[in-house]
Each structure stands twice: as structure tokens, then as C-alpha cells.
């Protein structure tokens, strides 16, 4: 466990020391500021309410979960694998007394922590901005549901990250992994629209699964099914990713 802990601390430190994490934070701030400015514009220009204090964080989540969050997850995942393969810096860790399984798990865990930190940062900032600039429309229930929606969004983002990690272990160039990831993302989005009856099977549709928790009737069966689909695909992607990582020659 101590070895895994060391590997995880190292991965988190590498993430923190790179500029990408800082850029992700700054872009998240920009999304919130631009979103709030747009709402202020709509309110003063058209006399519409726009969004209340609790609706604003949900609006932010709906936007980021399909845009900047997958984008930065992809960048961080690609950098963690393809980046280190191409610079040969993977050898630095691989020649230490730590198994490849622990290194792989530590890398995945660092990506998960990055996504969680991004979600929490977005939640806190959007809530603060929502309370300061918008009319108070919140109840305790809606407040709790907002926090819950942000937290459950972690799961589909992790599955997406595992998919990108698999591609990073499959394709040599990091740039190719990035473009293939974007292409697959767009294709799955389009397929989700065309074959809407099967859309729950697609990774990209699952990004919006937090909406299921907001429905008044609370569709337990649908939530459990979606959860199991994500869990199953997550396990398969993790296994396939590790298989390729373990076989890799450096």
C-alpha cells in the first residue's frame, strides 16, 4: 500500500507541476464568468430572469460536462500515458520497486482526482457566483440535488477517461490519440441522436446521466441500468488498458 501511495503522490505532483492543470482551472473560471455575463446580458437586455442562484450551477454543469471537462480529461490522460511514452520518462518510474499494476492504478487514480477536483471547483465557484449575482431561488432540496448532480457526473467522466487511456496505450502518438478521441466523441454523440432508443449504451449520452436524478418520479430501474452499463464498460476499458500497458516495451 505504501508503494501505491508513493506512486499516487508522485502522479498528483506531476499533474500539479505541469501547466495543464492550471490552464484547466483558469478555463473553468472563464466558463463561469462568461456564463454569468451571458445571464446578466439576457436579464438586462431582454428582461428575462435567465437563471436563479441554484439553476446557474446546473447550467454550468450541463455545459462543462459536454465540453471542457472531457477535453481536459483527455489532455490529462494523454499526457499521463502518451506524453511519458514519447519522452521516455515512463522509465523513471518503471525501474523503481513498484509493479506496473500499481503504476497504472496510480495514474488512473490521479486522473480521477483531477476530474473530481475540477467538478468540485466548478460547483463551488458556480454556486458562489449564482448566489452573488442571481435572485435567490434555492431550497435545501435543490441545493442538495445540485451537489449530488456534480458528484454523480464523476462516474461517466471516469469511464470516458478509461476509454482515452485505452486509446493512449493502443496508439503511439499523443496527437493521434487526441484526434481519435474527439472523433469517437463526435461519432458517439451523433449515433446517440440517430439511434436514440440505444443512446443509453453510448458513453457520451451517459455524461448527462445526472439528469435522471432530477426527475421527480426518480427512475430507480433506469438509474441502476445506467450505473451497471458504466461499471461494466469501465471494468472492460480498465482491463484492456492495463493489458496493453503491461505488455508495453520501453
Amino acid at each position, binding site marked *: 500500500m505504501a508503494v501505491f501511495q508513493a506512486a499516487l503522490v508522485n502522479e498528483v*505532483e506531476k499533474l500539479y507541476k505541469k501547466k495543464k492543470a492550471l490552464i484547466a482551472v483558469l478555463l473553468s473560471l472563464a466558463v463561469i464568468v462568461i456564463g454569468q455575463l451571458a445571464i446578466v446580458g439576457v436579464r438586462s437586455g431582454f428582461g428575462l430572469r435567465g437563471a436563479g442562484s441554484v439553476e446557474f450551477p446546473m447550467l454550468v454543469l450541463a455545459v462543462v460536462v459536454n465540453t471542457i471537462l472531457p477535453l481536459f480529461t483527455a489532455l490529462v490522460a494523454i499526457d499521463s500515458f502518451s506524453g511519458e511514452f514519447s519522452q521516455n520518462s515512463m522509465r*523513471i518510474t518503471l525501474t523503481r*520497486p513498484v*509493479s506496473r499494476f500499481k503504476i497504472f492504478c496510480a495514474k488512473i487514480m490521479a486522473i480521477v482526482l483531477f476530474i473530481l477536483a475540477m467538478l468540485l471547483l466548478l460547483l463551488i465557484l458556480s454556486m458562489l457566483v449564482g448566489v452573488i449575482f442571481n435572485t435567490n431561488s434555492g431550497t435545501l432540496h435543490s441545493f442538495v440535488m445540485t451537489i449530488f448532480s456534480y458528484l454523480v457526473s464523476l462516474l461517466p467522466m471516469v469511464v470516458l477517461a478509461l476509454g482515452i487511456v485505452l486509446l493512449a496505450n493502443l496508439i503511439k502518438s499523443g496527437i493521434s490519440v487526441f484526434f481519435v478521441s474527439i472523433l469517437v466523441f463526435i461519432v458517439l454523440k451523433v449515433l446517440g441522436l440517430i439511434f436514440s432508443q440505444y443512446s443509453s449504451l453510448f458513453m457520451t449520452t451517459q455524461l448527462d446521466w445526472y439528469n435522471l436524478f432530477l426527475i421527480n418520479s426518480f427512475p430507480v430501474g433506469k438509474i441502476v441500468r445506467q450505473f451497471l452499463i458504466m461499471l461494466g464498460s469501465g471494468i472492460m476499458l480498465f482491463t484492456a488498458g492495463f493489458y496493453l500497458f503491461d505488455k508495453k516495451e520501453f
Partner: protein
Amino acid sequence: METIIEIKELTKLYGNGRGIKDINLDIYKGDIFGFLGPNGAGKTTAMKIMTGLIRPERGDVKIFGYSVTEEYELAMEKVGCLIEIAEAYTYMSAFDNLKQLARYYPEVDYKRIDEVLELTGMIKYKHEKPKKFSLGMKQRLGLAAALLSRPKVVILDEPLNGLDVEGMIDIRRLIHHLAEQDQTTFFISSHLIHDVELTCNRIGVIYEGKMLNVESTPNILKNYATLENYFVSEVERNGRVPSSAR
């Protein structure tokens, strides 16, 4: 003599026919073993297998009795290594790079990091990022990383790459000092044959993926004027053997 590294029937062949075939070798405690061979003979392949960077097709390497393929963490616990080019995270200072590695060894503290930086002459660049380092400086940092955990076995692939004469002498002294004082075992590959002669006390020659001979340096120098003469003679002798007879 205590066997530290045990290589048995190690085989790894690439698509182009290169690689290593049935390598058997024992390295004993306190050995400074020089691994010699022409380019493409299989030195780096063998060393990469020894450090778990690639897997063998057949055979195994045991370090302190632990298999590198089966019990990697235990096998590498007392091993420090530098394979091919010394790699470092370019966005972290030299100190932070070593701090990353230190986390895998509970007994290594910040004082030890300063100690190895001092040993390798890198202490004045402690807070600089390797991005701006010369090849020699990177190599020194790589050596510092290899020695950080006070390893009992050090595997070095071309450790003198990019070092100036002063650097070579410093590293040679350091290797002798560690072998004598701490009984550290060294496994070194280098194309600088004169330096191998001055540094190593046992020599193994690898040619076309096969081990030709293993002999102690004093014995070699009894029969040959220089190690270079011995190496050329070994390689030529093997080169003259028809491939069908090998």
C-alpha cells in the same frame, strides 16, 4: 561467493533477427562487471530485461533470488539503474526529480538527496530544471537517481555518455569507492573499452546475442596487452566461425 544476479537461458529475439539467445551469467557480490559487445550485440536488450522494461521470451533474471518477471518489486528493492539515456522530468527541478524517486524508499530523506547530488557534482544545480542541462549534467543526475536508495546492485548502461574526462574520472572513482566500501555490485555496459578496463574487475563479451566469454580483468591482462586486444580477438574468433557451426 554470493550470487547477486543470476541470468538463466535469457532469450529475446526481435523481428529483424537481433536480440539475445540463451544468455547464462552469474554476477557475484562486489563484482564490477563490464558488459562488452559491438553495437547491436544485445547489451541494452539484456539490461532492459534485467530492469523489467521488456519481457523475455524465455529464461529469467533473478536478483537476490527474486525473479524480475514474477516478483518485480522484491527484485528491484535494492537495485539502482540507469538505462540508455538518463531521463528526468523537465518541468521539475533536479531536487524535485529525486524527491519523486525518494518516495519509493522509506529510508531515503532530503539529506540523502543532497548527498547524492553532492557525490555526482550536481549540488549547485539542485534547484534548476533539467530542461537546460547538458547531456553530461543529465547523465550525472541519472547517476544520482541510480545511487539514491543506497542500492546493493547498480545496473548502468553507458553511464559515461556525454561526460567529460573529469566527469569520467569522478564516476570511476565513485564506482570503486562504492564497491570497496559498501560491497556494491555493479553491472556496467560501455563502449569506452579503456574505461571498462580501468573500472571493471570482470568482463563478459556478448556478440550477436550470445555470451562469448566471461573472464576476470587481471586474467585477461595476463594474456593480452589491453582489453581492446582481448575484445577484438574474441569477436574475430567468433566472427570466423561459420554461422551453421554456431
